[in-house]
């Protein structure tokens, strides 16, 4: 029983990180109808921004992590947003009117560019991510130990998801995003500048990836330029599982995947850990390609 509880907490903590990344995939899919395969690498760059930034900011904050952490989070989000917007402007925008396959292949190219460019700039060796969340535990009984990092991860991720939900459903920009995701041309008839909304979407998605990176590196502190591949692919699976294009679906898919993965590695074998995500992908594509919360998109006439 206690082990089960422990696995659930660990699973939710990992799953909420997947959820943050998955939201980026699903939002960009919603607006542009293609999978931004470079998204996992934006996540990786976020981890490296955090790696170089954290010691500096902690020194500036006089060693106070409570002051330093929000600043590090904000700057990393900003850095990833700039990267995300730049990728869209330079690589995807010129291809906007081309077939989606062209953009998809370009996204894979951008992904490779960031991965191997990252090896060139940051070096290929793994680096140890500095401590951003103080070690220790919030709950420590003989049944369950909930580490401070699990709580910080879960609370931060859920707060950001609620904030995103507010932006998308309660602000003018968010409503415009939903309008653009319905139809670009009709949205432009409202006076909406499509390019602005697309950039805004990349800012939101990349910011969440940045936050996910800091949280992920706080649990798994060994970072390297290829670290974005697996979390990226798994978050993509999570987005498909929940129903691509659906925000709640991405969050739900992330959580389900995180918990499943933790259970499989805890009760079966950790060597199946990575296989489970792709088994889920195959099953969902076979039996419910629209995902849990996704709906069939009616062909527009």
């Amino acid at each position, binding site marked *: 029983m206690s082990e089960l509880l422990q696995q659930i907490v660990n699973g939710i903590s990992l799953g909420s990180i997947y959820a943050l990344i998955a939201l980026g995939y699903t939002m960009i899919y919603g607006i542009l109808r293609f999978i931004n395969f470079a998204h996992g690498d934006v996540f990786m760059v976020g981890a490296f921004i955090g790696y170089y930034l954290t010691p500096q900011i902690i020194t500036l904050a006089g060693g106070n992590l409570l002051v330093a952490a929000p600043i590090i989070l904000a700057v990393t989000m900003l850095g990833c947003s700039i990267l995300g917007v730049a990728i869209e402007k330079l690589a995807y925008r010129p291809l906007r009117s081309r077939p989606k396959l062209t953009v998809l292949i370009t996204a894979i190219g951008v992904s490779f560019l960031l991965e191997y460019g990252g090896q060139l700039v940051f070096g290929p060796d793994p680096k140890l991510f500095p401590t951003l969340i103080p070690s220790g535990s919030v709950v420590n009984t003989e049944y369950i130990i909930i580490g401070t990092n699990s709580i910080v991860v879960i609370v931060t991720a859920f707060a950001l998801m609620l904030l995103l939900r507010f932006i998308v459903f309660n602000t*003018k920009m968010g409503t415009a995003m939903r309008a653009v995701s319905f139809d670009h041309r009709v949205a432009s008839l409202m006076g*909406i500048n499509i390019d602005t909304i697309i950039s805004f979407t990349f800012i939101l998605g990349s910011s969440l990836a940045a936050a996910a990176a800091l949280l992920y590196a706080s649990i798994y502190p060994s970072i390297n330029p290829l670290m974005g591949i697996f979390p990226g692919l798994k978050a993509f699976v999570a987005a498909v599982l929940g129903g691509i294009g659906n925000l709640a679906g991405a969050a739900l898919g992330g959580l389900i995947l995180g918990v499943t993965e933790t259970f499989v590695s805890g009760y079966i074998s950790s060597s199946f850990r990575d296989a489970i995500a792709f088994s889920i992908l195959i099953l969902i594509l076979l039996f419910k390609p629209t995902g849990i919360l996704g709906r069939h998109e009616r062909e527009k006439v």
Partner: protein
Amino acid sequence: MLEIVDLEVKYGAIAALQGISLSVKPGQIVTMIGANGAGKSTLLRAVSGLVGITSGKILFDNANITNLPAHRIVGRGISHAPEGRMIFANLTVKENLEMGAYLRDDKDGIASDLERVFSLFPRLKERIHQSGGTLSGGEQQMLAVGRALMARPRMLLLDEPSLGIGPILVKAIFSTIVEINRELGMTILIVEQNAHQALKIAHYGYVVETGKIILQGPCVEIARNELVRKAYLSES
């Protein structure tokens, strides 16, 4: 107010508009009638910036708006209720209307225009929190017109407001269009296959066939024209 000079639009090798010239004066309802595929929708799309122009000029209030991007043309004061209504199915009725007012910042003005749209189309008020996709065809058409009005435009482009709607609702919508023109002094360009209704409410009309204007004049005269009666008003 709107001056279209020798407009040509090509989709690939196909010429959709072959030298159309047309003018709309302030306060007028002008209609363009013609069969499906005659180029009516293309004309409105060219004016609102949705399709590129091969040659020719579009002037609005004497300013050249040819090939301006669509989102900037709205800012000049032209609102387009597109063919097939194109309501944001994933947004509520209220959000659809708010998107119509996307470029405006005057909260009070938006609120009073929202009320005005509801007084023109009381049905929309009943459905205010329903998503656009759940509305009937007629309600969607009301929403499309209401949404276009929310930009507080100086000119309204209406693309086939009668399409796919029962005759009673068509009458209601056309009488609201007249009301919008009279009460708000709105200039309206309306393209229609339903020549009968359009000629009844418009002041001036154009008949278009395969991308060319074949006839124009005050609607009373057009309605009397032998050719129009045979081809568009289905009288023998």
